[in-house]
Every structure is written in C-alpha cells, then in structure tokens.
C-alpha cells in the first residue's frame, strides 16, 4: 500500500503516474438464470472479514449483503444484493474526512483508510451517498473495500454464483466510472 498523503496521492493520480487501469468489483446478475443471482449465502462477508481481520465476523466485513423489503406482504418475496465501495470518481468519503486519513493504492486505484489516522468521526459514512463505507463495530475505524490490496479479491473468489467480478476499467484523465450496482429489479 502507498504511504502518500491524500494531496500527494491525488497529485500523482492526476498526473497519470498511477496506472491507467483501475480495478473495481462489479456485480453482474443474469436475467435469465435463477441461479446466477446473489443467493444470500453471505460467504463474501465471511471471507472478507477472515482475510482482513483473522477472525470471522460479517459485521466487520467491507462487503455487506443487504436485503430488499418483502414485496406483496409479509409472505412475499425479497432478494439479497451485495453492497460495497464502488470506487467512485467523486470520492465523497475522502472529501469529507477532516484528517486526510486516506491514501490511494497505485496498483488498484482504490482510496483506502489508514487505520491509525482514523479518528472515528463517521463523517465519511454520512458522506457516502450509497452507504458503502462503514464503521467496524469492534475497532470503530472506518472500513471500505480495498480490493484486498493487489491480491485476488476474496469475495470474488468465493462467490458461488459468480455474481461478483473483478473488472479492470480504463481511467480517462481522472474520470472514474461508476460501476453498475444493485440487484435485479423484479
């Protein structure tokens, strides 16, 4: 991981010294096959926390499985979908942070929290429009998807229905695409 400050990272990033390709985790569900959707197994949460923290605790995972409300009453249907940092262009979290405790990983393009610097103010959590950065309930430090450093992301590896995919996208002069997120709308 890079040791640059936020300003240094951004400068490096904007001058193009950072890789022109960045990685994001994309959620892709099949419209046609009932088994190629998020099945709510929560294995991604478990793998993420085990990889990052050496314990298993889904509430400390950087990917969270959310569930829609039941349609058609109490007995109706619902579906599960993954929620994780979409590595957005605006980096609302970074912008909101009062102590610049983020750094960018040049290998992936991901902005990551420096745990020792985080003051648990939760402003980043409030700033993210999609709720994709969380407070770790045990350490009270902000956590978000860091693409597992530069290794194969654990959630992508373990997802049994192949819904999570690691995708490389081209970065065009600082414009970072917002990948598609969310479950199928039915």
């Amino acid at each position: 991981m890079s040791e640059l400050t936020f300003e240094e990272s951004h400068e490096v990033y904007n001058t193009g010294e950072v890789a022109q390709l960045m990685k994001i985790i994309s959620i892709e569900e099949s419209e046609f096959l009932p088994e190629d959707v998020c099945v709510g197994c929560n294995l991604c949460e478990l793998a993420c926390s085990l990889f990052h923290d050496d314990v298993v605790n889904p509430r400390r995972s950087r990917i969270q499985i959310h569930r829609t409300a039941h349609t058609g009453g109490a007995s109706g249907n619902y579906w599960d979908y993954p929620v994780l940092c979409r590595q957005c262009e605006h980096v609302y979290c970074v912008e909101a942070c009062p102590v610049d405790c983020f750094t960018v990983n040049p290998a992936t393009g991901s902005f990551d929290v420096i745990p020792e610097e985080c003051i648990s103010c939760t402003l980043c959590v409030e700033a993210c429009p999609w709720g994709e950065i969380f407070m770790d309930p045990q350490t009270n430090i902000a956590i978000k998807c860091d693409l597992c450093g530069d290794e194969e992301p654990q959630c992508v590896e373990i997802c049994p229905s192949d819904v999570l995919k690691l995708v490389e996208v081209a970065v065009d002069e600082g414009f970072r695409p917002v990948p598609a997120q969310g479950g199928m709308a039915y």
Partner: protein
Amino acid sequence: MGVYSAKGGYSGRILEVNLSTGGMEDLPLDERLVRDYVGGRGWTSRTLWDEVGPETDPLGEDAILMMVNSPFAGTPIPMSGRMHVAAKSPLSGILGDSNVGGHFGAYLKFAGYDGILLRGISPEPVWLWIDNGRAELRPAGHLWGKGVYEVDELLKQEVGDPYIKTAIIGQAGENLVRYAAIMIDRGAAAGRTGVGTVMGSKQLKAIATRGNQDVKVVDPKRFFDLVQRAHHLADGDPQTTDGRMHGTHRLVGLFDGVGDLPSYNYRQGTFEGTEKIRAEALREGGYLKRGRACYACNYYCHRSSSVESGQYKGTWVGGPEFENVKGFGSLCGNDDLEAILHFNMMANDYGMDTISLTHSLAFCMDAYDLGMLSKDELDGIDMGWGNTDAMEAMIKQITFREGIGDLLAEGLLRATAELGRNSDELIVHFKGIEDSSTDKRNDMLIGLWGLTSTRGADHLRACTSHFPNIPLDLAEELFGTKQAINPRRIDGKGALIKYNEDRVTTFDALGICKFWWWWSSRWENVNDRIRVSAEAYTALTGLEVDSEWWEESGDRIYNIERAFNCREGIRKKDDLHVPKKFQTPMETGPMKGKALTVEIVDTLMSDYYVARGWDEDGVPSRAKLESLDLGDVADELKRVVEKTNGRVPA
C-alpha cells in the same frame, strides 16, 4: 473435566432459559462436551440423556428443548450454518430431533452463543430476544395466533432491524399439533418429530437474534487455506450443478424412474402425473424465480419459487423441496404443481412438518377410497385423490384441530389407534414417525433407514444409497464381504449401516450440511471432505484430532441416543415393526414384486446389533459403552433394563 475455554470456533457459552421463572444464565461449556461430543447433535443427545427420561412428559414442565449450532457455524466453511434442534418427541415418545439450515444457527454464534437450552413453561406467551450477548424475554400476546410470516415481519419492526434472524412457531405449534415445526428464517423447517410442538407447549412463540461478536480462529492462515480447499472440492462435481439447478426437487423424477416414488399413499411407486410436478416443470413453468442459499452455502439449493396467476396467485415460497412435492403431489395423487407450492407455503406459515402432514392427508384419501372413512367423518370434505380444495380444507382442520383434524393432529399412530377398523394397516411409520423419502420396498441399502434410526423414520441417519460406488475390495475390508454394497443382498448391511451412521452423525455434530458434504456422486470424495473438515476443525479450534476421532465421536453419539431410547423402553420388538404396506409386495412399476418382510428385517437387525456391539435385544452392551467412555451410561441402563422390559408410555 472442567470448563472448556474456547480459543476458536466455539463461543464458549450456552444460553439457558427457564421459562417458568423467566430466569436466564450463560452456561460455560463442559470440556467433556467439547472433546467427546463435538457440537450440534452431539450436545443435544448427551443433554437429553442427562436431563430427560421416561418420567418426563414431552409437553410438560420438565421437558427441555435444545438448539445447538456448531464450531463451524459463522465461518466460511461451506454449508456450515446448520443447527440441531432436539427434545423428547411428543409424537414418538423417544428421542426427537431435527437438523435445520437457514441463517439462524450462524447468527446465534455472532450473538455470542453455541446453543440455547429451554426449560419450563412460560405462564404467558413470550418471545426470546438474543441481542449481541444479552438476552431477554418479551411479551408475545400480540403475536400469538398469527402465522410465521406475519410474526417475522412484526419482530423486525419491533426491534427496528430487518436483518435479525428468527425461529418461529405458527398456529400448529400453538395448538400442539404433534408434528408442529419451528420455522427458521421463514422458509427452513426444523420439522420432524414435533420439536415445534414442544416449543408451543412452553408458550414460546419465537426466538430472534443478531450480533457482531467475532468468531475466533486459532490458525487463520491454515484455516483460510482449508476453506478454499473445501470450496474447490465442490467445483466440477456434477452433484453441485444439479443441486443448484433443482435442489432436492430433482429427486421426484429420479425416484419415479426407479419406481420408488411414494404415490397414492404407498399404493404405487410411480406416478402418472410426475411430468407435471418434477423439477423441470418448475423451471419451464416459470415458477422457479431465484437461487437462494442457507448461511455460508455455496450450493444454494434452497431456491425460491412463486405462482403469478390462477387460483394460487401470490404464492411465494422457498424451495420446493422433494418431501413437499412428493407429499402434496404424488402421495396424494395430485399433479397440480401450483397447488403444491401453495400448500407448501401454508405449511410454512402454520409451522407444520409437511412429511407428517401429508401422510395424514394421504391417509384420509386412502381410507375414504376404501370406504373406511365416510365423508361425514371427514367433516363433509370430499377427500378424493388429488382433490386440491379438499387438501386445503383438511390442512386447516388439522392446524386448528377442528373436527377430524383434532384426531389427525395427534399423528397417525394415535389417530388410527382411536379409529380402529384396521386403519393402522394404512399408515407407514417407524416408531410413530411417519416415513420420509422413498418407498422402502426398494432395496436393502435404503429400506432399513427408519428401523436403525434413533429417531424413528428418517432419511438422514444412515444415508447409504450412494454406496455402489465403493471399490469391491474396500467393501470387503470394511464390511466383511463384497456383497455388503449389493442392494439386492442382506449380507454385510449391519456393518455398512453402522459405518455410515457413525460418519454421518459427526457431520451433524459439526453442523455442516450433508446434502453436499455427504451425498457425493463419488465415494472417495466423501473421504476427501472428511479429511478437509477434520483439518479445518483443528485449524479453527486448536484441538488436535486424529483419524479415529470422526467415527469414534459419531459412534459415541449414536450409542447415547440408543441408550436414551432403550431407557424409554425400546427393544428389538420395536425395531422389527415393518409397516403393513411395506410388507405387501409392490404391485406395479419397476419395483413390482418387491417387499420389505419381517424376516429380512429380523436378519438385518441381528447383524446390525453385532456390528454395533449391542446385545440380542438391541441394548448397548457394557463393553461397548465403556469403550466409548460411557461407563456411567452403562450403569444407568443396567438399572433400567433390570427394572422393566416394557415400553413406558409417553
């Protein structure tokens, strides 16, 4: 032995709740429980032996209800979310238990508990809220009388969190239908043997839980490595693809082809309506909507289906599973798949075991057809084969104990004893539990499941049907003869069944789902999986286990279950009960002419007792028990056996 201090996997605590007093206590784990009984079913069986006996009324104040997850619960070991629920059965009067999936078991671990032990009877309806290490009983008067789906919503609203996991009984449990179920997360049933009835008798409407406690891992790197190996073992396994597409529903077509699909209350082994209710019909009809998984499961066989038009429009239900399609379908001569889905949902909402329930429905149809029961006696309901309106009406009668439903809610053994007129010849049960899975006249590998099982009728104790894969010389080495794996011969079956039961039991103790871990398409894969899970257990908990640990633990647990039953009065004569329908040769289909006779069973039982180390009456011998460190059990059994040889009524 002393208190077990958990370093990994286990949380180290069981929540004990006394519903009579409202008192609660965190019980530390006994070291012996962990080392000798592992978890899950091991703990429930040992506790039942210790706490409950012949003088205990299954629905009385002294009865206990126990739910235990496992060391693997809450970890990414695949299919590790299972939970074991046990009590003295109000249906059979012997050991009762049910192993269930869903998410509750894992969430209980995150809440900081390995299990829940429920005692007493609450003076008022209550529900139990286990919130991150803290537990409290809350009033449930406003929930009583409501179905499972509605209560699940209400609980989530009450605590303001849609992500809690729930264990709820429906009206069937409240009304003490003897085969009521506990519904886990709305769609997974702890169904068999009446564990829901026990929960209803305690006036406990629901349990809900959540938490953010860590599950510690002693050797995280090694554990993660083994987790990945376990996941890779599934890849490329044809069983995996099949299970994902169709779940257990695929067994409908499979069994019909073989000729042992229970149809028309076991009159036939094939069903002419199979094409309309098999797994392909679910998919092609557009009813199958989504893959869905239990916790940490990479197999996601549960699925989710719906009906969007017609009489049953608005039906949404998990599954359907084989037992429900067979039960509401072929067993009742019904080929309407939409009706099956609807009845499945009803049974989930009312909280009832669909296996026992559908036996009651099929019995009514059979008796009606034979003129044994009149329409009048059936509350004016025209119980013709496949009459779906009649089925719907009768399901309600049973749930609310109206009319003949009051009798049927007692379970078919009691109901037919009351009815007389040889109606008991129509029922298919083992030790009072209505039979599951296939017709048992099929072959020697499957036919004996309900007889050797420690909870009566069962398809998840012996699990022997995939054995033809085993190499012949290995069969000879393990079971004394190559013929052991021949489904047409009785040779070596005792040893084979014991071998299986011991290994399968440890899967239940470890809380991992047998549907994938055990039901492999290749025998040698099972051994790989056993090796991986044993190593994972060590990496997780720090407890060194050797190659004998797996089967020895299973053997010990099985013996204590058998001891429990013997103390209740079970002897060889009970093991020899073969339903009349199975003694009668099959009349049509590929299995034509086959029967399960008492002679076959007698031979088998003697062979099985020898393999098990039990005496000629099926009572575990002192030598056997002592070899498993169960000398205290041997002392108790000696006392009981000397005192009485008869069955103590429930």
